[in-house]
């Protein structure tokens, strides 16, 4: 009788948190979700175009690996996305939801452009690059620290604050573009210093994007070490886990919040420098192109681990390039790339549940098992 009662009080499906996941199991689950996502995407494309799904996958791969030029573009996009993802990571690790990377990078872009336009032809490149670096880092830091100060002192909601700062940055750039537009009336800046190449980051080994990639690689290693082995990195983890614990062990939480956001902003500034001086040589309100938001995804998927972020940002860039290739190959409106990226991300987001939680089916006659799984759930 009692056995019967127990059976009925337990729901058919019960969710419990996994204590710890073996890393490869987690990646198998994520891998399965990506495969399922790709099947869903092919289904959508076939529905829209009536093409053979194999061709769709071919186009997907061709987007990143179709030619050596495409490989370089993919690597460049990967580097930039990774750079912004690195930038948001220290703050996220602290559970500070900075969704203003878009604006912080844009301010870095703006500072770089100012230097290029007003100093580009006047200073030697050896002096100009440090100045641009300082300016862009400073711009990023200012944009990131403002919300941090308010959050640290008055608990102002950082998600909403940083979100609003994005649009203020966008309008500042739009404001400056009016002064810099070239040709007049086009509302675009055009290539800055196109003849003198003043303020352009140097091309090394004949590869336009190589310098960007190396800078980001160095940043990745640096941030990995900073977060994992430095005292400050440890403080970030403690504040992220529990503000009360941090206070109890004597960490100055306000200081950590502001300092960490300054680091985030500084890396955003570097990203801005690389985007304007190292890549586009121009600026527009869409220079960052939503990377500030995609970076959140990259960082979150990698569990805020800079090394894993190379993998997750590759994944996102690969899918994004592939989706645009699909759009061109099947002459679809380019927005189809957004739809496909969205679908794939939904699957990946959903898969995190199965990585972190366990589904327990109701057992029929096994009381021993029942109490065991109840213990696990604790």
């Amino acid at each position, binding site marked *: 009788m009692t056995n019967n009662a127990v059976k009925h009080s337990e729901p058919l499906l019960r969710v419990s948190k996994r204590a710890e996941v073996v890393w490869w199991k987690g990646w198998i689950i994520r891998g399965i979700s990506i495969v399922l996502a790709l099947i869903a995407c092919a289904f959508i494309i076939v529905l829209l175009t009536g093409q053979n799904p194999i061709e769709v996958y071919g186009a997907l791969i061709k987007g990143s690996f179709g030619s050596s030029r495409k490989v370089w573009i993919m690597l460049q996009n990967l580097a930039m996305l990774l750079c912004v993802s690195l930038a948001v990571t220290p703050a996220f690790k602290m559970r500070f939801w900075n969704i203003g990377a878009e604006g912080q990078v844009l301010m870095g872009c703006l500072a770089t452009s100012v230097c290029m336009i007003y100093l580009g032809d006047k200073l030697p490149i050896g002096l100009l690059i440090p100045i641009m670096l300082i300016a862009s880092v400073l711009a990023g830091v200012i944009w990131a620290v403002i919300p941090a100060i308010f959050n640290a002192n008055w608990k102002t*909601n950082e998600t*909403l604050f940083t979100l609003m700062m994005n*649009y*203020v940055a966008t309008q500042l750039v*739009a404001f400056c573009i009016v002064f810099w537009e070239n040709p007049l009336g086009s509302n675009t800046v055009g290539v800055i210093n196109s003849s003198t190449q003043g303020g352009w980051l140097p091309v090394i080994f004949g590869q336009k994007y190589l310098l960007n990639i190396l800078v980001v690689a160095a940043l990745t290693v640096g941030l990995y070490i900073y977060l994992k082995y430095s005292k400050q990195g440890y403080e970030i983890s403690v504040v992220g886990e529990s503000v009360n614990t941090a206070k109890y062990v004597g960490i100055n939480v306000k200081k950590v919040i502001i300092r960490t956001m300054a680091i985030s902003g500084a890396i955003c500034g570097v990203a801005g420098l690389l985007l304007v001086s190292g890549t586009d040589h121009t600026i527009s309100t869409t220079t960052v192109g939503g990377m500030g938001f995609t970076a959140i995804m990259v960082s979150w998927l990698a569990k805020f681990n800079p090394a894993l972020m190379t993998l997750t940002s590759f994944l996102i860039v690969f899918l994004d390039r592939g989706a645009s290739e699909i759009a061109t190959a099947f002459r679809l*409106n380019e*927005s189809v790339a*957004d739809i496909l990226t969205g679908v794939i991300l939904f699957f990946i*987001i959903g898969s995190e549940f199965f990585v*972190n939680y366990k589904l327990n089916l109701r057992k029929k006659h096994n009381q021993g098992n029942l109490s065991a799984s109840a213990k696990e759930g604790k």
Partner: protein
Amino acid sequence: MGILASIVFFIKQSIIQGIPLLYGSTGEIITEKSGNLNLGIPGIMYMGGISGVIGGYFYERSTDNPNAFLAIFITFMSAIVGSALLALIYSFLTITLHANQNVTGLTLTTFGVGIGNFFGGSLTKLFGEGGSISLMFTGNAFKATLPFASKLGLFGELFLSYGFLAYLAVIIAIISSIILTKTRVGLNLRAVGENPATADAAGINVTLYKYVATCIGGAIAGLGGLYFIMDYTGGSWTNGGFGDRGWLAIALVIFALWKPKHSIWGSFLFGGLYIVYLYIPGLGRSSQEIFKMLPYVVTLVVLVLTSMRKKREYQPPESLGTTYFREER
């Protein structure tokens, strides 16, 4: 035009600009009251717009002499279903699968804007016609005003010259305000948003409340997209035409201090701020860009001031942005 007439004209334009924001912010307030910070609202508003367009497109194609009432009904229902569906995806991922709300919301925005621009740009091509979508008939049905409105001079111009969706926005905001503050359902919903664990202990079905609030909120926000497409632009879709109004709606939630009744006048104010640069004589293009910053700056100021004043009723719902898992306390 006399001074009075131009002021009335400006107010009218502000209200027209404000209506999509009012829908968006009312929807987002209801969502956030359940503790869900849905940053997918901009995507949902695009989705509401395009679902309405798709519904209207098929209706106008299917018949030679369309009926205004039916056209409105079909587009209206499609918009609600489409946007609620996106909100359902968000709910499933964040509530059932405990996914991070920021990440899910931002993805939803990418997805929704993508769907809007994809179908908006190629719906006619997919069905072998080509050209851009223009639903004149449905658009006019939505724009219809009371027949005597134009005869009432400035009064009629100011109060009676809008399509029905504009009045519906205000009515929905008022009803939401009453439900949130005066009924048990509203009390329960606020409890879920403030402290889901306590609400759960008190016997409130947290999951159900979160799901329903998010989906209804999404549907309401979607109507903002529908208003923009059908009433404001008269049934023709331009890719990206809706712009950043979705984010502005989220800003308005903060400005209104999570109260739909403040959203009503707040949305008209934001609508005014959004277009005021067009009405100030002698503004250069550069200063126009600075003026476009206004709604966001005003929101920032409100956000900062309210957080400094620390008054309980001005704060965001306590559990906003966090997922609730019963076994994890």
